[in-house]
């Protein structure tokens, strides 16, 4: 072997402990891996590190993430893809794995039909009834439901790992809403993109045919044999661990991504709430678990599903893939009986071996388990998550005793499995290769009278060298999974995840009201962030000047500006209410809090955080450039928060950076999203927020009559805060006067930042919203904004700038602004009530607070 290889592998041999994919027991290299190894040698380890960095960068750029529940830093964690793929030769793949997966999918399909049908397996003594009846996933509500599709189990996924005998074993079955196919696809594209050279002369099977089968299966499942059924992807939402994949698949397949609150059951059918009307849904590809799908019949506390959905399924008016209830197959209690079931149906043995398992519901098996507990892995039949698995070799006496007691109380709920050491494969870590445990998730899709198997799948790698277990929940590493062939394969067709390929929504009428609402709020939060940041920046500038030139008027105007901050950001008491004397002693402290305190309503940090949430909910709409800019904002924020001293200069600089990026981001929104995709809603939100804040600013700064020099300083700050000073100078070429400022920022019909212009713009956009006959609320929101527009058009500068009797206030101005503010608020409320679906919340008729299923 050449020297380079030696360095790459220098630790590999010493780390090598158990069965390895790459090294044979006699320390020679598995021939299937040889070509790949040679490529690595050609690339060299330092180049390989560069490639790995590039993969990491690409994953981050593309926003490929994985959320980790119950971890404050776990949201949107970057997906880890190792540059070294995992490979299997097609001989092994086709002769056993593919056949074995098809056999197991067929078998589980029959088991599923039987469990919710005749239950012959139980009646004939093949399967103990407790394995089904004591499993939480057995939903009696789904009993005897008939489906149109030939296969009831439409998607099947199995985790495989190579056992000590060198064969691939089935470790677990995933049947409700298996995750991973999207990540598998993205892994392939990423590797193909970054290291195309390693694919050269290696024939890797491509998975695109499988995704066509997935699409065809979804179309065929539509209950009414429609040519062009309406298909949606149902997600639990942005907090779900695999939310990235939901948006990715929806975008790749071209179906709308929806949440439970987007859907409604009426007249025995399922509908998608769109801006214009209800649109019938024929097929749901779901990523929500069984129990959460229908709060009427299943878990009462679920907000992820649709009330009444099960009855629509019973009446065959909608198909759900996989059907509700299929979680019963995620059942380790089935394992000991699978071979007998296989013999019962097919008169043959299982092709893929399983881990030896003992169901404690049988006396003999239970006795064996209790006397060998220390050597076994114990789980409940219906809890497959890692937290609920007992690795008995690591338990102390007290814990073992407790477990024994639990088993004896309800033995039928427990299964024990032999502990197995699965194979390792090379993983690139710190410039060298290291053996790590791997687990392969494979996928099957119902296709006519058989199943189509994805060539490859998703390989997950244990988080560190000593770890026995492999799990994404902990944020592990993944690998591209190659099935290599002797024959030349078609190259990977070009598809990259990008907003431009998103054809899910073609018409604003079909925009789901949930998406519409998120766009609207994106507009509002961005508008608020920008106005707030600019305003705080102006005040900081003034504070800076005051340090060098502190005279009486300067002090007075600054005092007024501080108070205006509280008004504009609505962060009372602040500089106005109780305790303000204290704040005036150290105003910077309050301003820092208004910038950085995420828990403070009205602060810049809090507004940006709110935007963050809408942003992730909409991720399938954003382009890559937007990701990049947004990521930049987040990074700025992170770095800045760590700083120890927040001087005026530093804060100003920070706000400069944030403002520039916000503006870039807003410009990108306008060029990346079509009006019909919902940009209209974004604009309405943005303009509404900006207009509302403009009104607040005018009320805070223009209403009170100040002495001349103070007035001047305030007007200057006011114009600066909306970057309008240059325009003012260009338009009026004069000393700053209240009259001219009112003319420019309130009444000018052409200037984009004037209130008149903004209100006109809102009216124009509100008038473009879809209008359904018979909905009088639509008319109301149009009426309100029209009234605001008429109001502002009727205003004259003379009347507005007139003073009250004792010459302290411009009362007319304040009254007019108050009325406009009310009208803007009412318009916003009406838009929300008419187009968004949260005006009424889902509730139980009787609040039952039952324990969870």
């Amino acid at each position, binding site marked *: 072997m050449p020297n380079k290889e030696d360095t790459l592998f220098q630790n590999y041999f010493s780390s090598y402990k158990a069965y390895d994919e790459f090294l044979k027991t006699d320390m020679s290299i598995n021939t299937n891996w040889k070509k790949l190894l040679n490529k690595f040698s050609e690339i060299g380890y330092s180049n390989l590190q560069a490639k790995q960095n590039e993969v990491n960068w690409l994953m981050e750029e593309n926003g490929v993430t994985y959320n980790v529940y119950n971890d404050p830093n776990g949201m949107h964690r970057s997906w880890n893809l190792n540059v070294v793929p995992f490979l299997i030769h097609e001989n092994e793949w086709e002769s056993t794995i593919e056949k074995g997966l098809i056999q197991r999918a067929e078998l589980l399909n029959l088991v599923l039909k039987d469990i919710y049908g005749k239950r012959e397996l*139980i*009646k004939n*003594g093949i399967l103990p*009834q*407790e394995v089904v*009846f*004591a499993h939480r996933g057995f939903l*009696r*509500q789904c*009993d005897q439901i008939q489906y149109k599709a030939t296969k009831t189990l439409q998607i099947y996924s199995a985790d495989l790992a190579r056992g000590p005998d060198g064969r691939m074993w089935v470790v677990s079955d995933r049947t409700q809403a298996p995750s991973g196919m999207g990540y598998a696809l993205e892994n392939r594209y990423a590797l193909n993109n970054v290291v195309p050279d390693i694919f050269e002369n290696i024939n890797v099977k491509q998975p695109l045919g499988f995704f066509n089968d997935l699409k065809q299966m979804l179309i065929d499942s539509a209950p009414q044999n429609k040519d062009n059924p309406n298909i949606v992807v149902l997600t639990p939402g942005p907090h779900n661990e695999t939310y990235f994949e939901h948006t990715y698949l929806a975008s790749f397949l071209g179906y709308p991504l929806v949440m439970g609150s987007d859907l409604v*059951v*009426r*007249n*025995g059918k399922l509908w998608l709430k769109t801006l214009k009307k209800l649109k019938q849904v024929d097929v749901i590809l779901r990523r929500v678990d069984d129990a959460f799908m229908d*709060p*009427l*019949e299943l878990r*009462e506390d679920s907000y992820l599903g649709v*009330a*009444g959905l099960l*009855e629509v399924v*019973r009446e065959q008016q909608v198909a759900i893939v996989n059907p509700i209830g299929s979680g019963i197959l995620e059942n380790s209690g089935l394992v000991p009986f699978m071979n007998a079931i296989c013999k019962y149906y097919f008169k043959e043995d299982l092709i893929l071996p399983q881990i030896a398992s003992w169901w404690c519901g049988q006396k003999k098996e239970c006795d064996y388990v209790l006397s060998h507990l220390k050597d076994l892995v114990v789980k409940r039949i219906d809890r497959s998550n890692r937290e609920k698995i007992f690795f008995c070799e690591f338990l102390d006496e007290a814990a073992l005793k407790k477990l024994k007691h639990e088993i004896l*109380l*309800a033995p*039928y709920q427990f299964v024990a499995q032999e502990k197995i050491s699965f194979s390792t494969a090379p993983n690139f870590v710190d410039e060298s290769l290291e053996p790590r445990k791997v687990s392969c998730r494979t996928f099957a899709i119902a296709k006519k009278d058989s199943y189509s198997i994805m060539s490859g799948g998703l390989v997950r790698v244990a988080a560190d060298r000593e770890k026995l277990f492999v799990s994404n929940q902990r944020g592990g590493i993944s690998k591209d999974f190659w099935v290599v062939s002797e024959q030349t394969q078609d190259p990977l067709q070009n598809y990259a995840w990008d907003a431009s390929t998103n054809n899910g929504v073609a018409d604003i009428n079909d925009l789901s009201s949930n998406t519409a609402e998120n766009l609207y709020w994106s507009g509002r939060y961005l508008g608020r962030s920008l106005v707030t940041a600019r305003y705080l920046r102006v005040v900081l500038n003034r504070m800076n000047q005051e340090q060098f030139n502190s005279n009486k008027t300067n002090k007075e105007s600054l005092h007024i500006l501080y108070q205006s901050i509280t008004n504009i950001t609505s962060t009372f008491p602040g500089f106005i209410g109780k305790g303000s004397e204290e704040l005036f002693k150290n105003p910077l402290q309050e301003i820092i809090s208004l910038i950085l305190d995420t828990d403070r309503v009205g602060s810049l940090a809090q507004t940006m955080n709110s935007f963050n949430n809408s942003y992730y909910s909409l991720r399938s709409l954003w382009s890559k450039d937007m990701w990049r800019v947004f990521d930049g904002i987040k990074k700025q924020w992170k770095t800045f928060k760590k700083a120890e001293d927040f001087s005026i200069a530093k804060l100003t600089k920070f706000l400069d950076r944030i403002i520039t990026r916000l503006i870039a981001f807003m410009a990108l929104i306008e060029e990346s999203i079509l009006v019909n995709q919902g940009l209209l809603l974004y604009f309405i939100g943005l303009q509404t927020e900006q207009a509302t804040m403009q009104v607040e600013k005018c009320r805070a700064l223009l209403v009170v009559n100040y002495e001349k020099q103070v007035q001047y300083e305030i007007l200057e700050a006011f114009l600066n805060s909306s970057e309008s000073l240059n325009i003012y100078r260009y338009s009026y070429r004069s000393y700053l006067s209240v009259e001219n400022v009112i003319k420019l920022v309130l009444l000018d019909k052409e200037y984009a930042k004037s209130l008149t212009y903004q209100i006109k713009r809102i009216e124009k956009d509100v008038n473009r919203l879809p209008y359904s006959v018979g909905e009088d609320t639509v008319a109301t929101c149009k009426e309100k904004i029209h009234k605001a527009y008429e109001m502002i058009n009727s205003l004259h500068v003379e009347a507005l700038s007139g003073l009250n009797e004792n010459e302290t206030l411009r009362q007319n101005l304040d009254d007019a602004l108050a009325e406009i503010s009310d009208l803007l608020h009412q318009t916003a409320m009406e838009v929300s009530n008419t187009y968004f679906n949260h*005006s*009424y*919340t*889902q*509730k*139980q*008729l*009787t609040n*039952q*607070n*039952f*324990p969870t*299923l």
Partner: protein
Amino acid sequence: MLYQVSHTTSYKYQYGVTFCHNIATIKPKNMLGQTVVDYKLEISPTPTEFSEKLDFFGNTVTRFSIQEHHKTLKVTALSKILRDSSLAPNIYESEMGQQINLIDALAVLKTEKLHIIDVRQFMLESILIANISSEIRAYAEESFKPNRSIFEATYELMERIFNDFEFNPNVTNVATPIHEVITNKKGVCQDFAQIAIACIRSVGLPARYVSGYIETLPPPGKEKLVGTDASHAWFSIYIPTFGWVDFDPTNNQIPKDQHIIVAYGRDYYDVPPLKGVIYSSGENKMKVAVDIRPAV
């Protein structure tokens, strides 16, 4: 005995409801010893959708939805029931049934006969009767002994619950866990039924929940007031070699003609008389009125 039963549930919504989906398990059963002569379900406002189906346990389940804005919902089930419990098998006529002890009963339950397999689901934990505590088991074992007749033991269990527990409608609700009830020894019929079921399952025997009505009799010489009755619940135990036998721990008796059966389930969760999902923003108030009287 021919009864006329009326069961009305009404809801008042503070701000109204835009629409709702509901499920009612409210229609009395047709079975040996109980015939539904007449049955009518009145719902106001009139539902847009309405269906009647059998559920997993063989109960009639009514699903309906109302799609117009409404401020009150009223569901009234009116039925005429002919009750003659003497037609059903009587445990007092079965020597075997009265005598079978715990050891023998458990042995029969291990056999793989079809009807036994079917009954075994009522030995398992259910949603409201899960993680049965050692306290409950200890309470059960005072009555259930290996060599004692399980009929006798169940009868005694019923008597003990009747004597040890205080009927008090103000301490529990439908979600109060059985472990609280066994400690406080207070509750309503549904709590008592579930405690009994938990006890029976803790010794390895099958028990199920029965929801229905009971005719209450006015004090001698007084006329019965309308609406004084309520939905009722009791339990049933499966006695191998005989079959299901009902017991009412709230009234300390084996139900006969005064008990009308609506539904069977593993516990209350399987058979709530009325549940639903509503879309509204305010509070709501519920009222239930049941009236049972001999039909004229």
